[in-house]
Structures are given as structure tokens and as C-alpha cells.
């Protein structure tokens, strides 16, 4: 990588993307009119609405990039980008299928057996099969390669033991992709493998961990000797680290890394418009946020286009995620200055004080999830070292 590779250039979205964007906007307008809850910050973490998910699936907006042969849409990454950025900007409840659509589907397509693809991919695209990420543990956060969950060989397959932590949606989802140690080799990165685990298995015990807001999305996921057949192994034994790294690239590069709090800014703009005259100070601050948002989006589109063209963009994705997630938090601080209204979590749901409270209570997570910003910056400077 060289410094020039960080200059991703402008992206011109194809004309079909413009049409698609309008279709999504029309769909969202109808949903809004029908009373679907929209406009919420961080809706990809806590906006759980399987019925909404199925309506999206009927439009072909889940599993869009999966091949048609597996029930997917066979569409481009940039088309998917347009659809999800519209959903996120609108604060639509997309958390049910989020992980399945973003990473489980593409990972299974890439590493799964034909049987796994035929089983899971059509269900994912239909919005009927939801996934959790089973990576982190109590003692393995940034240092993911230190995971202790073990899978031991049995006569018929594997037995899985350990406890995953922070497992989002494990209490409502169908499956988790679990990273486990299959070989106690010297090299920590070798000897890891991934498994597709049925969360309804009697040997899986899910225990809630409440967020700052009291909401329930996190869990402990106790794997108490779960018996797995070989069909549960995802990819090759010992390839878990390489696979998980690829999965993190999918997890890090999307528009959810700068749009989580946009609905709050949109709500602020609405609030200011209703109150009438805005001071030059308020205008300038809204303008500053808009310029930063638009610039981060350009970078993010550049990463999406690079990935779509098959160019490596791990460093660029880390860069956008650090900028974008810091922006998500800055936005929350800034709207408080622009319009000093006290946040109230117990105010009417959807009212401005309640949206602000949600964004504040979720803020610490923006720069942690999917790899902390400090770790991302390490990826960027490693990229720089390689360029020297």
C-alpha cells in the first residue's frame, strides 16, 4: 500500500442506483405512513422488527449480492450500498437481519459447503433466518485470537464448550457463527475454526446482559457441550482466523459506521425548521456537520467501490470506520449545543428528547463495536509502515 492508495477518488453511482434509491424512498414513505417506527438512531443495533425485515425481503433488498441460484438478488455491492444507506438514514428497524445480510450470508457463500449454501442462503435472503456473531469472550476483546471456547473432535463431529460474550441478538436469532479453538498449536492464529451453531440447541444457554439504556440486545452465550456434526464446520479447520478477518472487513466498511446517529440530526433539522428563525451560529453548526457527513460518505463510497472492484481496502475501511464512528458521537455532542434540549429516556417514544437520550446512551458503543478505534488506527499505521 502507498499513501496514494488512500486517495480513493470520486465514485459515480450508476443510473440504476438512482432508480433504486427512489424505490427505497417510496417504500419508506409508505412504511412511515403505515406507522412503522422509523427515524430512530442506532436502529441497526436495536431496531428489531421481523415483519419489516420480511417486507424488505419481498422487495429483494436482503441478500442482494448473493447469487440468484441461492435465492439472492445477484446485484452489485454498490446497489446494496444505496439500499442500506437509505434504510439507515431513515432509521429503519433493520437489526433482525442485519448480521445475516451483512456478514453471515457472504461468509457462508465464500467458505461454506454446497449444502450449507443451499440451506442457509435462500433463508437469509427471504428474511427468515437470523444470525449472531460469536466472536468476543470475557477475556478476548481486541485480542480476539486469544479466544478460549474449544471445539473437540468427537466420533460424529465436534463438541463445543465455552462462553461467548456481547453476543448481540442471541436470544432472538436462529444461529451464531462461533469462533473456537480446534487445535492448541503454538501459533495462536492457527488452530482456530468457525462453526455455525443453532441457538435453539438445548446445550446453548443464553443469558441477557443489559445495555446502559436497560435495553436487551447483548448476551452471554454459554456453549455447554454443544454436539455438532461436521456439517456445522464453516470453512476449513484451522482457517478460522483468516475467515474471521475477512468477515471483519465486511463488518467494518459499511455505511452503518457513520450513519448510526444521522436520524438524530434529521430530527434536529425538523425541530429547527418548526421553531422558525435559526441563528447564524445554528446554521453554521448544521453546515459543519453536513459537510463532514458528506465527506465521510464520499470516502465510504470509495471503499465500497474498491471492494466491489476486488481491490483490497482493509486499511481504507479502518480509516473510514474511525472517522465515521467518531463522527457519530461528535454529532450527538454537537446537536446538544445547537439546540439545548435536555435528553429524556422516559419522554414519549420518538420525541426529540427521547431520540437524543437513546443516541447518548448508545454513544459509547459506536467506537467500540466491530473493533475499537484504537485498534483500527493500528491497522492504518501498519499500512503506512508497509508503504515506507
Amino acid at each position, binding site marked *: 500500500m502507498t499513501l496514494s492508495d488512500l486517495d480513493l477518488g*470520486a465514485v459515480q453511482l450508476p443510473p440504476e442506483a438512482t432508480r433504486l*434509491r427512489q424505490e427505497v424512498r417510496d417504500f419508506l414513505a409508505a412504511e412511515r405512513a403505515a406507522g412503522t417506527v422509523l427515524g430512530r438512531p442506532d436502529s441497526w443495533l436495536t431496531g428489531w422488527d421481523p415483519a419489516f425485515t420480511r417486507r424488505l425481503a419481498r422487495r429483494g433488498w436482503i441478500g442482494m449480492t448473493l447469487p440468484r441460484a441461492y435465492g439472492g438478488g445477484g446485484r452489485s455491492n454498490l446497489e446494496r450500498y444505496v439500499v442500506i444507506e437509505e434504510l439507515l438514514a431513515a432509521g429503519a428497524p433493520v437489526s433482525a437481519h442485519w448480521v445475516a445480510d451483512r456478514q453471515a450470508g457472504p461468509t457462508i457463500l465464500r467458505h461454506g459447503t454446497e449444502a450449507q449454501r443451499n440451506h442457509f442462503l435462500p433463508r437469509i435472503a427471504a428474511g427468515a433466518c437470523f444470525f449472531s456473531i460469536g466472536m468476543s469472550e470475557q477475556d478476548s476483546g481486541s485480542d480476539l485470537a486469544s479466544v478460549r471456547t474449544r471445539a473437540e473432535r468427537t466420533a460424529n463431529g465436534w463438541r463445543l464448550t465455552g462462553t461467548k460474550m456481547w453476543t448481540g441478538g442471541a436470544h432472538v436469532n436462529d444461529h451464531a457463527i462461533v469462533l473456537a479453538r480446534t487445535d492448541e498449536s503454538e501459533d495462536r492464529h492457527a488452530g482456530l475454526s468457525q462453526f455455525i451453531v443453532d441457538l435453539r440447541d438445548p446445550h446453548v444457554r443464553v443469558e441477557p446482559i443489559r445495555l446502559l439504556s436497560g435495553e436487551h440486545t447483548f448476551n452471554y452465550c454459554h456453549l455447554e457441550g454443544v454436539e455438532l456434526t461436521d456439517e456445522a464446520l464453516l470453512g476449513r479447520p484451522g482457517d478460522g482466523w483468516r475467515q474471521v478477518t475477512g468477515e471483519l472487513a465486511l463488518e467494518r466498511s459499511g455505511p452503518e459506521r457513520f450513519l448510526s446517529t444521522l436520524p438524530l440530526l*434529521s430530527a434536529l433539522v425538523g425541530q429547527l425548521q418548526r421553531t422558525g428563525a435559526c441563528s447564524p451560529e445554528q446554521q453554521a453548526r448544521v453546515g459543519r456537520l453536513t459537510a463532514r457527513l458528506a465527506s465521510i*460518505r464520499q470516502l465510504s463510497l470509495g471503499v465500497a467501490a474498491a471492494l466491489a472492484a476486488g481491490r483490497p481496502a482493509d486499511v481504507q475501511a479502518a480509516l473510514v470506520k474511525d472517522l465515521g464512528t467518531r463522527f457519530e458521537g461528535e454529532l450527538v455532542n454537537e446537536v446538544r449545543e445547537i439546540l439545548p434540549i435536555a435528553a429524556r429516556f422516559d419522554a414519549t417514544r420518538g420525541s426529540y428528547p427521547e431520540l437524543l437520550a437513546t443516541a447518548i446512551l448508545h454513544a459509547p458503543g459506536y467506537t467500540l463495536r466491530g473493533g475499537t478505534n484504537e485498534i483500527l488506527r493500528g491497522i492504518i*499505521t501498519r499500512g503506512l509502515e508497509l508503504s515506507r
Partner: protein
Amino acid sequence: MSIEPCAESVAEPLSEPLSERAVDALPPLDTAPTALVALAREAGYRSTPAPLAETLLVARPLLAAAGLAVPDGQLTVAAGPLDVRFTHVDTDSRVGPSGAAGTDDALRVSGTLHRVPWARAAEAAVVLTEGPGGGPVLFLLEATEWRQVAGTNLAGEPRDDLVLLDVAVPAERVRRIPAALVREATWRSGLARAALIAGAARRCVELTVDHTSSRVQFGRPLSHFQAVKQEEAKLVEEAALVAAAVEAAASALSEPDSAEFTAWLAAAQAAASVAEITRIAHQLHGAIGFTELSPLRLATTRMWSWRDEDSGERAWQQRIGRHVLDGGSGGLWQQVTGG
């Protein structure tokens, strides 16, 4: 052509010497807009001692849009109130704010244009002002027609006052222009400044990466230390952000619907990023960056001036904010996605 480089840039230890090409040979008039923005970025990167960005991105396109011939050489741009009268007054006329119309557009002009970029290095200046009959006019002034009072910005770049003493501007160098072209002059200047900042930001990144990998403290290169890495990554990010905003505006130059707003965004973001980029670059350079011993100042002092020139950071932000707030609900996201 008279070019007076700033004293400091003569001795500047740039890795690549300033090429004659960058200063003297201007690209042809039909060069693609994105290539012109790239040249302006390069001028910012190299601290080129000439009004290259002004010539390519502002003066030439304005002259072309106004239907005036584009002269050879470097051009600068100036706007502001002047005392403007018709040279040939139509004695029959009783109309117009100045009481009389002209038989043609020839003008006599007096007054001062303030802090004009690189005036002393320019062959001519494109001037926008209020015409004698009301409504904006654009005219071309030749370098021999003004008296110059030398001034400089924080980087020592020329920002000269042009004093006009009853200058006669022939009709073939004057055009009445629509208000939209006055707006275009503003956003084009903002884009030119943003492109320069993007180039200078790139230079800050390169100099800082070179410095932290070669300077040794505690027996290791600075780039080994976590605290240094963390800041260096943020520097790289902020520079990439400016580049992305400028590239978006460059590609929007050929789209009349979005060119103006996208240029505002680039101008606002470039100006706003200057503080973080220069803060980190200087912090990681240590004391040497605070002196003339390091070329870092060539980039950072320019950036500190550029963010305030051509409207300035705050004014760009206000324009964007007003536009968004006037845009109805959902307006913000629609503006950002271009409709």
C-alpha cells in the same frame, strides 16, 4: 512574466524541485475539470509560487462563461465595490442608478481591490464588481493598469492591494453578467482553495510519516510508539477526508445541478480540517517543525491562511446550513446524496 517567489520558497528543501512546467506552462483551455483540480492540488502540495489554482479553476472558467477571450499566462481574481462609470455616456439617457447609460460597455474604474492573490505574479486580473447601470459586471484588467501595494498572508504568499486610478477598460474587456456567475465565482474560489488545502494536507502527511519513521528517540523511531501511531492515523484520516470532499466536487464540476453545493461542501470541509491536520503534523514534528529548518511550515502556514480566504470556514458552513434548513424535512439527507 514577472514572478516574484516569496523569499522563503527559494530555499525550500522540497523533495522534488519546483518544475518550470508547474509555474510557466499552463494546461490547454479544454483540459478536463477533474485534471484542473488535480493540478490545483499539486500546486498546494508543492507550495507553487503562482496563482495556479486561481487561474485554472476560477479566472479562466469565468472569462469563458462571460464570453471573453482568455489571455495567456497566470491570472488572478478580485471582487469588491469600485467606483465604476461609463466611458462613453449616452447624453440622451436619463435612466439608471448613475443617471446615465453608456453608448457601449467601456468603463472608467477607480478604487481599491483588497488582498488579491499573487497579483504581482499575474498577467491580468478578472474583476467582478457592481456595474454603473446596476447589476454585476466582469472585466479583465491588465497588470500594467493597476498600482500594487504589496501585502502577504500568514505564509508570506502575496496578497496585494490593487489601486485603480481612473483606469479605462475598453468595451471588449467588459461583460455584464448574470448573478449566477457571481455565485459561481464564489464557489469556484472555494473549490480552488479546497484543492490547495488538499494538496498541502497531503504534504503534511508525507512529511510527518517521513519524520516519525526517521527520527529516533528512546532508541526507536517515533513511529514505533502507540501514542504516535494513534495521532498519525488520525492525521492520515483527516487528509483523506479532505481529498474525498475535493474529488467529489471535482467530479461534480461537470454536473450543473450539484456543482455548487458540492463545492461548498469541499470548501467547508477543507477549511474545517486544517486545524486538526496542522495540529497533529506539528505535534509529531516536535520543535523542528516550529522553525524554518523544516519544510512543514510551507504547508501549514498556507493552510492557516487558505481556510480564511474566499469567504472562510464559517461562511461556507452557514451557506450549507441555510440550504439544508430551507430544504424541508428529509432535506439534509437528500442534499447529501444529491437529490
